[in-house]
């Protein structure tokens, strides 16, 4: 069995890599920082005694995507599981003033994910099997003034994955959408989350692994976020626009 991780050096992505390696998967770790991906690959190899290979992957270098996916497929002898884990919060204030910054958030979180997802879908359809996992966000469930740009890109990704899941169902390819709340990562370090618990990357990886194994379609991490976002989505827009959440 084999797994490709795109954006492998985030803590959650690297824990997912370890989780699949622990289950015996060979892994390809693709990330923009090749040296970091190589150190992670060594770590995965040493701990789990599987094949682990690092390749350089720049999410916004769209033209290079086909070669990256082809290389991963070749190294792994076919990709059984692919995790699209890259993303970037961006600087919301800067993105309001410079469209180039806004475009980068959109491209990394949405356009690049679409680009690799289509390539992976084609690969998996040709093999008649596969699991494609995309990490969206609870921020994509409703637009809020504090992070609507990032949220809109992640929301678009969730909608895209929904359609892709529908399209690929008949081909035996499964699409899993992951919507994390707060996870204990670089992104949330130093963020005051109040009483809302923060999920460890290890627990997140375990939940993603299990959701993929049982063929879940959409999972919130942790699951209580489904209720929270259900509540937030239920607030009438006329009221919501006056609130600061």
């Amino acid at each position: 069995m084999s797994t490709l991780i795109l954006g492998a050096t985030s803590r959650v992505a690297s824990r997912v890599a370890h989780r699949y390696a622990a289950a015996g998967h060979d892994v390809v770790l693709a990330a923009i920082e090749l040296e970091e991906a190589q150190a992670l690959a060594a770590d995965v190899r040493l701990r789990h005694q599987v094949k682990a290979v690092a390749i350089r992957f720049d999410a916004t270098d769209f033209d290079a995507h086909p070669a990256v996916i082809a290389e991963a497929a070749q190294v792994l002898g076919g990709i059984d599981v692919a995790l699209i884990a890259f993303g970037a919060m961006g600087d919301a204030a800067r993105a309001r003033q410079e469209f180039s910054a806004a475009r980068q958030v959109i491209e990394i979180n949405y356009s690049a994910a679409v680009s690799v997802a289509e390539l992976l879908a084609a690969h998996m359809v040709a093999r008649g099997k596969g699991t494609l996992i995309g990490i969206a966000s609870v921020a994509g469930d409703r637009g809020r003034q504090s992070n609507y740009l990032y949220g809109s890109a992640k929301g678009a990704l969730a909608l895209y994955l929904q359609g892709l899941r529908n399209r690929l169902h008949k081909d035996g390819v499964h699409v899993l959408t992951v919507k994390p709340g707060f996870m204990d990562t670089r992104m949330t370090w130093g963020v005051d989350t109040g009483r809302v618990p923060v999920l460890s990357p290890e627990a997140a990886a375990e939940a993603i692994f299990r959701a993929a194994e049982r063929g879940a379609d959409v999972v919130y991490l942790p699951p209580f976020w489904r209720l929270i976002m259900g509540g937030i989505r239920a607030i009438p827009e006329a009221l919501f626009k006056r609130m600061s959440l």
Partner: protein
Amino acid sequence: MSTWAEQSLHGWGHYPVHGALVARPESPAEVAQALREHQGRGLLAYGLGRSYGDAPLLEGGQVLRTERLDRMLSFDDSTGWARIEAGVTVEDLARTFAPRGWFPPVVPGTWYVTAAGALANDIHGKNHHLDGTWADHVRRVELLTASGEVVVCDAEREPDLFWATVGGLGLTGLILSMEVRMVPIPGPYIEVETVKVRDLDHFFQVSAESGGYSHTVSWIDTTTRGRGMGRGHFMRGRWTAERPPAGLHLPRLTVPFDAPNALLNRATITLFNEAYYQRQRAARVRAITGYEPFFFPLDAVDGWNRAYGPRGFLQYQLVVPHDPERRAIRAVMEAVTRSGMASFLAVIKEFGDRIHPHLSFPRPGVTLAMDFPNRGRPLLDLFDRLDRIVLDAGGRLYLGKDARLSRDTFRAMYPEWEGWRALRDTWDPEGVFRSSLGRRLGLCKEDR
């Protein structure tokens, strides 16, 4: 830019608790970035917080948590050398390598320690009499020094910096990685013999007779005076390929909250010690066990330190030179029982003769470690009295366990401190690296 968060940190004893600005780098590049963001109030690495007192703390300064610098980078299965990042733990090494016939060369009583913490405290284990400390099995330590330069050091390359870093409590620089030499084992099992020890003299007799065992340690009852003083259980073990009987596994326990302080008092501690001593009726019991219960018995109880309650606890670990009459050890135990304080857990072991310069703790002789619930002033007064006994005997305390030693007493116990300080200062003239313990004992720049 690193993200710095205000956090309260403490060591394993939950005393003291100090606030700092804390970042958590996930790569060597992020460590270097954090060093560049140093604001002049000191910088210190914090691993898993298993030092007991204020060695891993830096009040009002900047602290780097190293738990995510945890990659294993290479392993040579013909020699056993493993190259690992600073935050790789003894647990990582044991879990990864024990099933493949290798084990970390030196392990402490918990496996939740990082490699960098092991070097910075120059930890010892049950095999010190044969194998020395962690530093004896390490080479190619990558140290990010105050200037921003990464210096590779070991006993051959930059030996001065290496030996200053060994037991140097993180005050010479930020350890990024090292090579540690794993030792081959016949199987992940230990053949252990537990000898019931009647008193202190009997302990030393059994210790002298245990040459055939690679690992020795003894639990000792510090609540009994007079004839039975120093009674306990002497555990001696060696690696074996023989499997333990099937169906034997220990339940995992958790202490989910801070116990009320009143739970551990002299009466309950004395009762515990009596029950623990009487647990084994035979003079000797031989068994085969997995390595976990032998090396890391307390790890089976998650958060056992919280049983001491919100005020925490203090450990007092001393080493005194060999003395046929064991005067210092007897005097210490008598002072403890007379004080009305009681140690819940006490451990005694004879060290070997291999020593390291500067602040590394082990010295030839006998080491005794005692845990006490934090009773404030009366306990600190007792510790001051014990310091006098230890000092008069030519002994010293383990800084990785310390939270209260005075500067003068420390300097008398570690006359090497001055040479160490001079060496440290040549690598960090501005005093970038500091700690709460370092300020207390005069080991680093002190302005706040």
